[in-house]
């Protein structure tokens, strides 16, 4: 069972995955992992494996869809794409993230 610490990470990871798929279009798991590492400039040290349970969870919730396809260098890979529900979820989560970070900033600044 995940500890409370990794749950925070999980929430962040959820948002990152959705955002990546939103901006990059359909991608395979390795691509998503790579992209997240690039964008975060390797600040976010992520076991790439932890991505897969998260992807599965998103799929079970209907936020993303998956399909087997062929990669750029002709390799069989599973491609994930954002669904309409996923896009809505992303908007909601991004918004709540903004609210949250704004609030934390305010708190940090006033004290």
């Amino acid at each position, binding site marked *: 069972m995940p500890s409370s610490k990794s749950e925070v990470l999980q929430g962040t990871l959820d948002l990152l995955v959705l955002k990546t798929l939103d901006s990059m279009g359909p991608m395979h798991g390795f691509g998503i992992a790579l992209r997240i590492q690039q964008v975060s400039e390797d600040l976010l040290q992520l076991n790439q494996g932890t991505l897969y349970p998260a992807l*599965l969870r998103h799929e079970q919730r209907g936020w993303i869809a998956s399909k087997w396809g062929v990669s750029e260098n002709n390799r069989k890979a599973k491609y994930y794409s954002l669904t309409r529900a996923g896009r809505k979820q992303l908007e909601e989560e991004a918004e709540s993230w903004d609210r949250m970070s704004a609030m934390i900033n305010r708190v940090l600044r006033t004290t």
Partner: protein
Amino acid sequence: MRELVRMFLRRLAALFRRSGLEDDLDDEVRSHLEMAEELNLQKGMSAEDARREALRSFGGIEQTKENYRDQRGLRMIETTLQDLRFGLRMLRRSPGFSILAILCLTLGIGANAAVFSWVEGILFRPYPAVTRQEQLLALSGTARGESGPTAISWPDLLDLQRSCTLIDSFIVSKIMGTTLSVGDRAERTAGSIVSANYFDAIGVHPLLGRGFEPGEDSGRNAHPVTVISYQLWKGRFNGDPQIIGKTQRLNGVVHTIVGVAPEGFYGTFVGWGMQFWVPASMEEIFEAGGYKLEDRGARWIEAYVRLKAGVNAAQAQEEISAVGKRLEADYPDTNRGRGIKLWPLWQTPFNNAGTLLPTLEIMLAVVVFVLLIACANVGNLLLVRSFARRHEMTVRLAIGAGRGRLLKQLLTEGLLLSAIGAAGGLLVAYWCRHALVLLFPARAGVAMHLPGEIDWRVLALSAGVCLIATLLLGLVPAMQTSKLDLAGALKAESAGVVGGGGRAWVRSGLVLLQMSLSFVLLVGAGLLLQSLQRIRTASPGFSTREVKMTAVDLVSAGYDAQRAQNFQDELIERVKALPGVELAAFARVTPLGYGTYSSSPIAVDGYQPPLEEQPTVEYNEVGPDYFATLGIPLVSGREFARADDEKAALVVVANETMSAKYWRGRNPIGERVQVKGRWMQVVGVAKDSKYQSIREAPKPFLFVPRRQNFSVGATLNIRTPLSPEAVATALAREVRVLDANLAPYEVITLQEQLDRSTSPQKVAVTLVGILGGLALLLAAIGLYGVMSYAVSQSTRELGLRMALGAGASNLLRLVMSRGLALTAGGLALGVAVALGLTRLLGNLLYKVSPRDPLTFGSAFVIMTIAGLAACFLPAWRATRTDPVRALRE
């Protein structure tokens, strides 16, 4: 919310496509690693570094997969299935253990389910075809100064019907019997006298024809119609589709068959299946005591009420009591001191629900005991096995299984056992549905009907029992597991016979529990057995073995009063002339039988009743020589003679209680008493005897001469040393001489009659006896199991003792003393519990103290013997220990 449902469904679906999804996962992980490796190669790493780096950044592969699997399926269900598979494998691997455990549970749960089904089918939902039984209540009268319920009169019932607003319908249903002759076969049949609303009010729609129409229950003998039962229609009328409109003679009167009741409808009398129904207008044909529909003093009705929706019993009772009060004020002559009472169906006072209630209550307690004992046994077995599996558990813990996971597996195994046991138990209950009837003595012709009902309530209760059993069973080894420590389990373990080891207290505790519960059951069975014996040997106040009883049914044969009188006079002379017959006498009702006595309000010269009391007394119409024939001694005066006929002065014989209550020590001979509005002179006082039940308290009772109070129906009592069979043959011959178409009923001794009247006690004794024996057996097995296990676990210690010079007798004594200490502890506990519990047998006990020392002593001896027997084999085995081998191992 929809999201959650979708998620659940997808996870559920994943359970069924596991292998395909597993391949998918493998492919995906592989493709990820390959892509990562390729990228690393492009960055210029060596092949080996590229691979290692790919694996490193992926993280633990198996861990990922495991997390993925957790996310994919429903972990709970998946592991449960796993546990189930594993549990089944464990059961298969030790069939001896499995069979024993399942057998114990089958018996325990089966006994519970069977008793639940009886309680449901006899007490709570006794009439399966009747709609909305939860709204039905039984209705009876009450009388001040009488503890029991009384019947109700027809005019009172009509007044209740008119005045009560909370009650939907009043449903009259009075049991009666007649001889039914169809074709060449005649047999005794039970039927009901009912109100015209009967079938509509209980929601039973005749299969053919109609029920009764409004108004058919009024007018003296005005509506000779009948509805017959499905069984009667199929069995006696061969399912004749043209049956409606045909006629059938019932008690000598031709009735038109207007309907056939549906299959599965047995009427509304717990204990007997009704074969036909007639409207109340025909009451006079089937009931003694003349036309009663306009007589407020004649109480004969048994009835039910159906409450209106939303009305509860207390509200209805309140209203009914108010009406009863008004009737009391309006009709003081007949209703003074009378009330009306409602009863829940399971307490119905006028059918077998009331008689079986205490038995079933006891049975409920007993089967819970048996279940506990069975569970303790299985718990013990599991415990012994859990020691054997300690190694397995330790390994599981060592490779990282959580304790919760182990607990869950043990509980699953318990559930598996109890579920199989429950399935077997329900089968047992199903077979036992009709078993209660078998325990009652067969009575010629009339079908007993005491069905168990296995419905969802019984199933739910059994499931609950099963669940509790599971918890009990699973928790015992679980307690052990939670104490399991990895290091300790690696060390060699040795249990001792003497000390018993640290954990043995659980097993010993279970045995203690079993021994004490079995002791309680044995004491209960013993007490019931003793009461039954006392009842059987109690003197009813008349001779039982010397008197043979039978009857010739002249009513159904259509005899009128005059013909019947001639026939009976003739017959009694012929019977008295038979060789071996000492005396013979007719009486309308036979004591301790199913017939009901006449009753009447009385007035006694010189006795002023308390203001609110209307003295009423039961009486029997008897022929000349009745007292001499039955052997009831007369205290003073004389008994009836042939001269006490219609033309003579009216006379009566009182019993001692009657004499003491109404004449208070004066000699009543020559005094007057008014019965049914006629003054009669007391000519004799008879010793008290039992009239309705062997257990009844002495009550005032009167006898009047048959000739002065004639009705056709009568029983014939014959005093003779001849066997009932011999009497039957001789009597049949004499009857045929008088009327070739007649045959007497079965001839039985009054003792037989008495025995039949005590069948509820017999049923209780039989059932508690069977279950008590079962419990004893289970407890003995439990003790045996614990002792053999202790011996087998301590061969090393025993061997050492032998090597140090202990002889066989020492070892025998060692093991036996430990077993007997357990037995003694169980017995001590059992005595304490039994002393507290046997009081609950209350009403079923007859002249036996609930603390009867003889019973306690016998149970003690039996348990001790069982304990000795159970310990002996293991002890003997201990003496056979080979010290050399034991020490070398």
